[in-house]
């Protein structure tokens, strides 16, 4: 049977304290007080569905050889580009071969489970290893229920023809135009119907009957399910659905409402990835996606699950958190209010598309060069080597730097230059094994920076050209919190 061979995820470091949202907007919407507990994740200004997707894919692929990846699928309802293949951007960032297929999937919050189902059947039909990624950066109107309930995040699974660490037992889907919420093309926010109706008619009937049909179809008893994964933008839904279909209450997987929120289309894969981190061999996992119908996927872990771990995993990223209790800061970082940026922000960031295409490996893949004669490593690749002792011409071979650690050579915290989240940290950094770059350094903690500090590279938004609505990506550095080296 086809199965999952690797899994990973990503949760942005910023966490809005819901109590601070209530303190700011509770005067207007006092009825939401019950939601004002815990925290939700949200993207920094330079993160979106694509950047989080890259992080999740890196976490999933870890040090695995990527050459087997034949397809990249990205599911999201918050794709950055409506017409520019987002999954291709991820393919470039992961430095995968050009002969990799790429597919964007969207349309509903069950797009990730649908993408996963598609991946399973495609690999069965010899489509080749498929990297299935789900990522969501939903925008929520300030003071809305969605603002409390939502979160941002991404997850990724690698699907292949053999069992892997979790093999597919079967799937079942229904498509029904049950419009609990909608968002037309070009609109920023969802329009949502009464939650009680969604809970009772949507989850209580459509999801429940789809699960029953799936169990019948696969001849599985509900009691056999060890992990029941249902992402829902409201609390306690998983418990009530499980009760209706006879799944053991202990099997209901925590929806991470208190620490993350509901990451829309990405939520089922985030929860699945989180579950697989702790699952034992021979456990049954039921994964449900809901939206314009319902998808049910049933998986069974294998012995391989015991030694299959992502780099950081959802758990690792959940621990790497920066609480934000300044609601206005959350609004500004999320682009929901516009602070005075000053004239320095007026720099024209027009994309040069010819150069962008020509330099795509450099810019999107952080691929430098290694001299085949001297071994000198540099970024970017140039016709003549930077080596001052061994002058060689056209000898550089592609040398990917994105997965290499780096250390700080020089740094500053710049309060003058424009950045949406000041100060702007940047400095000269040197990669382990060689190669240098003057890089922006993001997600700097209260501990600050120091010469010699260890960094890892992250794919981020470099600039947003607001005049032409183009998002430019490049790699930045961030303190490597997975390592204790700060000497």
């Amino acid at each position, binding site marked *: 049977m086809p199965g999952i061979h690797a899994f990973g995820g990503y949760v942005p470091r910023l966490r809005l304290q819901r109590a601070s949202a209530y303190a700011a907007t509770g005067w207007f919407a006092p009825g939401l007080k019950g939601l004002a507990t815990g925290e939700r994740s949200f993207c920094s200004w330079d993160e979106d569905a694509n950047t989080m997707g890259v992080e999740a894919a890196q976490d999933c692929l870890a040090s695995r050889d990527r050459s087997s990846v034949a397809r990249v699928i990205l599911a999201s309802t918050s794709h950055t580009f409506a017409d520019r293949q987002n999954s291709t951007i991820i393919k470039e960032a992961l430095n995968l071969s050009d002969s990799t297929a790429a597919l964007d999937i969207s349309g509903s919050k069950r797009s990730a489970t649908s993408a996963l189902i598609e991946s399973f059947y495609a690999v069965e039909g010899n489509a080749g290893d498929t990297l299935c990624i789900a990522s969501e950066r939903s925008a929520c109107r300030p003071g809305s229920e969605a603002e409390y309930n939502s979160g941002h995040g991404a997850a990724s699974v690698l699907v292949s023809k053999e069992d892997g660490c979790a093999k597919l037992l079967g799937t079942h889907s229904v498509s029904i135009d049950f419009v609990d919420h909608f968002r037309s093309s070009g609109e920023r926010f969802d329009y949502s119907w009464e939650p009680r109706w969604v809970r009772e008619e949507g989850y209580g009937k459509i999801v429940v009957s789809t699960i029953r049909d799936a169990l019948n179809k696969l001849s599985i008893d509900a009691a056999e399910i060890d992990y029941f994964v249902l992402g829902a933008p409201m609390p306690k839904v998983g418990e009530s659905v499980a009760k209706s279909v006879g799944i053991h209450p202990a099997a209901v997987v925590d929806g991470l409402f208190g620490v993350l929120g509901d990451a829309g289309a990405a939520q089922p894969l985030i929860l699945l990835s989180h579950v697989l981190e702790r699952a034992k061999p021979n456990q049954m996992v039921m994964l449900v996606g809901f939206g314009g119908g319902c998808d049910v996927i049933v998986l069974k872990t294998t012995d391989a699950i015991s030694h299959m771990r992502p780099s950081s995993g959802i758990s690792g990223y959940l621990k790497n958190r920066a609480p934000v209790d300044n609601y206005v800061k959350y609004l500004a970082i999320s682009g929901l209010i516009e602070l005075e940026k000053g004239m320095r922000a007026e720099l024209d960031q027009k994309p040069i598309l010819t150069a962008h295409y020509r330099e795509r490996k450099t810019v999107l893949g952080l691929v430098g060069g290694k001299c085949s004669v001297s071994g000198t490593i540099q970024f970017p690749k140039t016709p003549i080597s930077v080596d001052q002792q061994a002058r060689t011409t056209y000898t550089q071979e592609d040398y990917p730097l994105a997965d290499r650690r780096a250390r700080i050579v020089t740094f*500053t915290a710049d309060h003058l*230059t424009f950045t949406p989240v000041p100060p702007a940290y940047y400095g000269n950094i040197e990669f382990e094994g060689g190669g240098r770059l*003057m890089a922006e350094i993001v997600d700097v903690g209260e501990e600050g920076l120091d*010469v010699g500090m260890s960094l890892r590279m992250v794919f981020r938004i470099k600039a947003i050209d607001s005049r032409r609505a183009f998002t430019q990506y490049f790699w930045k550095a961030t303190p490597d919190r997975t390592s204790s080296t700060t000497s």
Partner: protein
Amino acid sequence: MASGIKDKVAILGMGCCRFGERWSDNADVLAVEAFEEALKDASIDVSQIEAAWLGVGFDSMNIGPSGIPLAMALRLPNIAVTKIENYCASGSDAFRGAVYAVASGAVDIALAFGLEKLKDTGYGGLPVRTRGTIYDMIGVVGSAPGFFAQVASAYRAKYGVDKDLLKRAIAHVSVKSHENGEKNPKAHLRKLITEADVINAPLIADPLGLFDCCGVSDGAACAIVSTPEIARSLGKTDLVTVKALAVAVSNGWELQGTGWDGSYFHTTRCAAHAAYKEAGITHPRKQLSLLEVHDCFSITELVTMEDLGVSAEGEAVKDVLNGVFDADGDIPCQIDGGLKCFGHPIGASGLRMIYENYLQILGRAGPRQRQDEPVYGLSHNLGGMPNQNVSAVVIVGREGA
């Protein structure tokens, strides 16, 4: 075998306008102010100038492209005007062009001009601009203080200098320049400040505060150069001649290669080495009378003392705090106030530095005149960022010295 530039070219005359926020004056007014002074000093007519070099840092934002704006402002007699943009070292490079033209024998009299009208930006500091297609995709859109502040982080790490001690040393650099600038009627900033003012000022780019940064100014400066023989034939005595002209440009080693630790300016070391060789200077600390260096930021001046070899490596903090570079110290640095207080109209700065050394050597520097009869004046003009830059070292001095 090239014999170098030493004593082949003399300065006939120089001019420099008042630097500052010249809100009511356009670039033409600044240019004419500097040029009239130089023409008068040189005692020649404009028709005798045969070629000109114009240095401008931000042409796209003030005077516009080409040499035409200078030719029009000064109504030059349809001679060649070569436009130079080489970051903040544009002024020194324009001087180099004019000096080389005379030394080659192609022309008898040449003009070097530096001009910048910066204060039409709408905000403080240098204008934000593109640095080229590829840089814009992979480089950092930082500020000048942000780029230069990084030198402090690396310098501290290399020599184990306490953060507060380094902050105090660079504060002294600025306090000293304000003392000097206060005596200079053409300077942009003429207010005395204290060490506490510097240390307590708002942070711009860690560890640089407001008073660690030079002024951004409007201004123009120029030099008219010729051969010593022609200078004498025009009635000049006490000639100031060019002893060395060196420009070193980063080739990417600091930015992309391995080995540079970020605590110094590689190009300045290259340019200083070449200039000392050309001028025949073997002990810079003893032989140089005056230094005008590119103190865009206080930390730049401090490490430049080591790059120029006037302080031993790791000793600049001590030398600065001991007052070695004060106006009454062993070897004054920025006796005119420097970029810090005279101001920094990019293209004009390199020529402003030479102007000060020229005045000092001729004893014409007024209340700020160094009393020990200066012989050699070094000017150091740096553009770009610490990891990718253009460094110029120019030495002028008494003829025959």
